[in-house]
């Protein structure tokens, strides 16, 4: 039993990988066996993610080394004090992201099992879903830059294949190709950055590089490469153009997880700024760059969302806009923490708000994309002009959509309000103009979702949707889990912040702690 607990971080990627590779084999035994297998595998990996997270929050950072005989054998005795093997470093920040991936990962699989019922090619689909989940877990958990690149590629390629899975007269194939090309460019930029660091510091381990960081000219080039690649992967505005296409064309459950995969890139962006270059880069400059990216994403995202007629494309632009809030919160955090005239608590508050928004966004945006998936499944169209009057027959879907829409618009008592309030409060003290922009964007978000709600669910029954049925039970359960979390996090935000977000924020600030967890108090 001990050996299982020791191996939990390894099992985190081992279970989805084994599941993915066995899925084609089990598909031959029939649909129900394959579905049960996929659900068991994602369920187990989610349990694994939650267990690792709780272990980290209880006992502190876990360092897991691949390919050694005992857990404590992190640094080989003959290596000169450097961990030469691939390691997973899971501190409270990683644990926070793991919880998000675990919750959303399970819900989207439950949803897909039901929504893929009538479609062909399911063995490949579920293999790719499990690979995507393994890739995202790896991106979150890894403590090694090259390993991060590998998992980034796994999740990008699996994601691109899934975006193109329903060819849809070539439109989805085009979106998938776009996603694959841009992800590859992003991956290559990242790889060049890793090479620049490896050439100077002879290590790929994040903790070792952070410890030795000199901030030479090459390091700054590497920083810009990392920053660009990861900002592109998370869909910040000047590089956001792939998000509407791929989020709109992917099957809805996949879109919900692509959001999580974007946020894993966002996490890596913060990890690079706070830990890898911790204390070395100029926090005010980098903070303001992140803030400007955030403001642009927020505003351009929401203004592009308003005229959209395709419900998923509209939600995709809102995802860009919400990413802006996270960037704004963390950017203000980075800038305010270094400031001499502002108190530290403002920076910490902004950071907590930005991080809390990552979790809330993954949950309510996942819920919204799943409701859009139900509409697609039952009505076969995403065009808002053709939909209407669905509230008569799809009561639960309507309730879930309402919960998600109110949460994204920042209306109490839903979780979006809790994190947005933290961002507003701290940003207002930092720079009132930023807070005003953030609030205006929030109002525009509400306006846009009122429009969507009205055109999808309100009004008289349309003749073509006379006999439209409520979503199947597994889909309702998947949406229900997310909806309950949206409400719970909205009613008890303080408990969630204290238990999960505050440790994550302090782990992100404390780069010395990250280094010494790996290098052993060096």
């Amino acid at each position: 039993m001990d050996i299982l607990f020791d191996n939990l971080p390894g099992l985190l990627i081992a279970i989805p990988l084994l599941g993915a590779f066995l899925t084609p084999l089990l598909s031959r035994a029939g649909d129900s066996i394959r579905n049960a297998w996929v659900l068991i595998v994602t369920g187990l990996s989610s349990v694994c993610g939650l267990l690792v997270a709780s272990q980290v929050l209880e006992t502190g950072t876990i360092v897991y080394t691949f390919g050694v005989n005992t857990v404590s054998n992190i640094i080989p005795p003959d290596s000169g004090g450097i961990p030469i093997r691939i390691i997973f470093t899971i501190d409270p920040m990683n644990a926070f992201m793991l919880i998000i991936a675990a919750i959303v990962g399970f819900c989207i699989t439950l949803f897909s099992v039901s929504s893929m019922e009538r479609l062909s090619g399911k063995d490949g689909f579920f293999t790719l879903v499990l690979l995507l989940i393994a890739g995202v877990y790896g991106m979150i958990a890894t403590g090694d830059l090259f390993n991060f690149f590998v998992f980034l590629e796994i999740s990008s390629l699996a994601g691109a294949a899934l975006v193109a899975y329903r060819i849809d007269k070539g439109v989805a194939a085009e979106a998938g190709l776009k996603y694959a090309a841009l992800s590859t460019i992003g991956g290559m930029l990242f790889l060049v950055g890793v090479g620049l660091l490896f050439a100077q510091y002879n290590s790929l381990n994040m903790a070792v590089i952070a410890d030795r960081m000199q901030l030479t000219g090459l390091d700054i080039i590497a920083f810009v490469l990392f920053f660009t690649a990861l900002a592109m992967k998370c869909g910040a505005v000047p590089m956001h153009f792939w998000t509407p296409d791929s989020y709109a064309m992917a099957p809805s459950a996949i879109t919900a997880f692509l959001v999580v995969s974007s946020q894993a890139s966002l996490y890596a962006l913060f990890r690079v700024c706070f830990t890898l270059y911790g204390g070395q880069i100029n926090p005010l400059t980098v903070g303001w760059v992140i803030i400007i990216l955030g403001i642009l994403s927020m505003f351009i995202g929401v203004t592009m969302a308003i005229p959209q007629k395709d419900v998923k494309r509209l939600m995709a632009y809102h995802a860009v806009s919400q990413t802006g809030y996270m960037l704004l919160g963390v950017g203000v955090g980075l800038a305010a923490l270094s400031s001499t005239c502002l108190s530290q608590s403002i920076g910490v508050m902004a950071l907590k708000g930005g991080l809390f928004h990552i979790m809330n966004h993954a949950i309510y945006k996942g819920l919204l994309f799943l409701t859009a998936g139900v509409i697609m499944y039952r009505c076969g169209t995403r065009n808002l002009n053709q939909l209407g009057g669905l509230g008569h027959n799809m009561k639960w879907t309507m309730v879930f959509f309402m919960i998600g829409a109110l949460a994204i618009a920042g209306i109490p008592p839903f979780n979006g309000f809790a994190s947005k309030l933290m961002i507003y409060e701290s940003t207002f003290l930092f720079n009132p103009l930023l807070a005003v922009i953030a609030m205006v964007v929030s109002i525009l978000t509400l306006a846009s979702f009122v429009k969507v709600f009205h055109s999808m669910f309100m009004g008289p029954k349309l003749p073509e949707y006379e006999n439209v049925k409520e979503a199947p039970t597994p889909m309702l359960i998947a949406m229900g889990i997310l909806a309950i979390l949206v409400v719970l996090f909205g009613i008890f935000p303080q408990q969630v912040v204290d238990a999960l977000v505050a440790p994550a924020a302090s782990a992100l600030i404390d780069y010395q702690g990250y280094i010494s967890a790996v290098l052993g108090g060096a």
Partner: protein
Amino acid sequence: MSDCMSKIIRTTADIMFMFIVVFGFYIVLHGHLTPGGGFQGGAVIATGFILLIVAHKLDDFLGWFKKKAFQNFEMSGLILFIGTALAAIPLGYLFFMNFLSGAGGLFGQVVPYGVNPGFLNTAGTIPIMNIAVGIEVLGGLSIIILYMTSGISNHEEGE
């Protein structure tokens, strides 16, 4: 792709096929000793199959080798790879531990010090993983080419 090449090309391809496959397996098996490895060897073997596809009719080729066979290769390679990595956990080590290295038996020999001609029976789980990757890549690349070729022939029929 509907018509096949001349008899000279077909015969040469048939003969070359065997040598290419043997060379590919040589690269796979010597992955831990010489440059190359599972991926490179698997790619070489796949070029052997591609040579047959180019020289013969696609239908003839599909009569000899089924698509399902390549899918099985791909799948069994992947399962062997992850299985070898996972086998370390029940034995009480961490994921990906090289538990066969230096243990005697299959691939368990310790490399003697100094210049040597290269001993295949060393390096623990690394050769096993190389073989797994080799099987996976030969299946995967062949499938990719098969799908692309059927795409071409469909296109030509459509015109």
